[in-house]
């Protein structure tokens, strides 16, 4: 229990003023613009959009600046802002198969239709600090251009599914649950946990995904495919009655291919874990796919004994805005609570001493 206490307004006001000054840093240096954050700290912006569950590069960049680079605080700011906006409706499901590919790799097939496209990746860099970036630089040369290949890039999972070796997804067009409107009622369908994972904390999901690889969940994943690029978002306004294009957004999709021993009704085959996130968020998409596959254990008749297989454990703890709210609420005055604990402890010690 915590009680309302008065006072401290002056201290709070001054603390905020100091925060503002600290955010600005050395006034002799030029101030960072929101556009600079959006353009030059793009992956921070992407992460904030994903975990803030709101795609808007400008708002996410502003949140990063306001939060002084604290990305969880920035996601919190974005979540708070989205509550001030009305919802016009839901889009048509995006067609990631028709993605305008910037990056597409498969760890399961070397030669696949459309090929391996590396895109703007950190993979294969040596992770040595590049001091050239710390110096004033000449304009950066534009990246080389190749000859665009119009070959469609089918999903790796589809190649396997055509052979009957990949379990098909259910194709029910039922209205999916929305955890921003309806509370979680366990057990929840996969659509609900995919929404939760898509906005879940990257670090938390990374740790959980890693745990499934290390034996807590017994998964044997292959990165069947990772793709990143623009998809068109279509929306059907009620006044028009047909779908129109709202614009493009960048998404990262990961298909993890996992073994499945089969069951009484199904032959042994591969199953998939699925990750989809706003922006270029490859680590997050991969972690999401691992955890998604973990959560499918029950559906596939596998033992449920690892943290990443427990719906309640994963979904109640993956949201960093919720988690930070409860952890950080410990900073609020608990004077009365603590006073009672203190008195109890003193009386116990007194009794023991008697």
């Amino acid at each position: 229990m915590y009680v309302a206490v008065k006072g401290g307004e002056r201290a709070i006001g001054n603390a905020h003023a100091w925060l503002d000054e600290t955010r600005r840093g050395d006034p002799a240096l030029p101030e960072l613009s929101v556009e600079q954050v959006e353009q030059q700290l793009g992956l921070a912006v992407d992460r904030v959009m994903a975990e803030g569950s709101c795609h808007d590069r400008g708002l996410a960049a502003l949140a990063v600046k306001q939060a002084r680079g604290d990305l969880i605080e920035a996601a919190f700011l974005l979540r708070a802002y989205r509550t001030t906006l009305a919802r016009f409706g839901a889009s048509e499901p995006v067609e990631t198969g028709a993605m305008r590919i910037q990056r597409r790799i498969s760890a399961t097939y070397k030669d696949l239709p459309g090929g391996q496209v590396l895109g703007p990746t950190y993979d294969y860099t040596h992770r040595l600090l590049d001091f050239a970036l710390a110096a004033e630089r000449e304009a950066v040369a534009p990246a080389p251009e190749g000859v665009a290949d119009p070959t469609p890039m089918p999903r790796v999972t589809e190649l396997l599914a055509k052979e009957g070796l990949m379990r098909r997804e259910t194709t029910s067009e039922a209205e999916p649950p929305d955890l921003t409107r309806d509370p979680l009622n366990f057990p929840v369908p996969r659509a609900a946990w995919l929404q939760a994972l898509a906005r879940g904390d990257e670090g938390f999901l990374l740790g959980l995904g890693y745990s499934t690889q290390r034996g807590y969940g017994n998964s044997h994943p292959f990165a069947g495919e990772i793709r990143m690029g623009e998809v068109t978002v279509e929306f059907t306004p009620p006044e028009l009655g047909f779908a129109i294009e709202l614009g493009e957004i960048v998404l990262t999709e990961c298909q993890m291919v996992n073994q499945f021993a089969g069951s009484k009704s199904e032959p042994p085959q591969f199953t998939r874990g699925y990750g989809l996130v706003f922006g270029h968020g490859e680590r997050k998409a991969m972690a999401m796919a691992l955890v998604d596959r973990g959560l499918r254990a029950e559906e596939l008749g596998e033992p449920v004994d690892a943290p990443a297989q427990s719906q309640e454990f994963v979904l109640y703890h993956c949201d960093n805005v919720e988690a930070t709210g409860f952890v950080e609420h410990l900073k609020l005055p608990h004077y009365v609570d603590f006073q009672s604990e203190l008195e109890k402890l003193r009386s116990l010690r007194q009794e023991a001493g008697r």
Partner: protein
Amino acid sequence: MGVLARATLGEIAARLEAAPPLPTHTRLRGPESGLVMVRGRQGGDGGPFNLGEMTVTRCSVRLADGTLGHAYVAGRDLRQAELAALLDACLQRPELRGVLLAEVVQPLAARQAEAAALVARKAAATKVEFFTMANMRS
């Protein structure tokens, strides 16, 4: 409509300089910013799920002759949405349609196609050409 949604306010306004002046209009709704819940598919091709929201701005306008125009565009640019709604109405008018398509929509579409093609060419430059034993010998 997708072309106008993808263009920035500045790009649309610049193209309009070459077009005849647009008729006056009345705002029926908005422009106002809100959210659209973006949906994905489970496993990429299964049933839908809610991925997360995106900001969208919408506007509906009416021309003096009663023609209605609607626009929904990604982002929060109120003036872009209003201009897109106005153009949507004007594009339904036979006397304006041809010139607006030629001076505004088609040039914007061409620029967008070129921007997309540039990304595709940069992606193509990062496509891996594997050397197999066979062609290493040749």
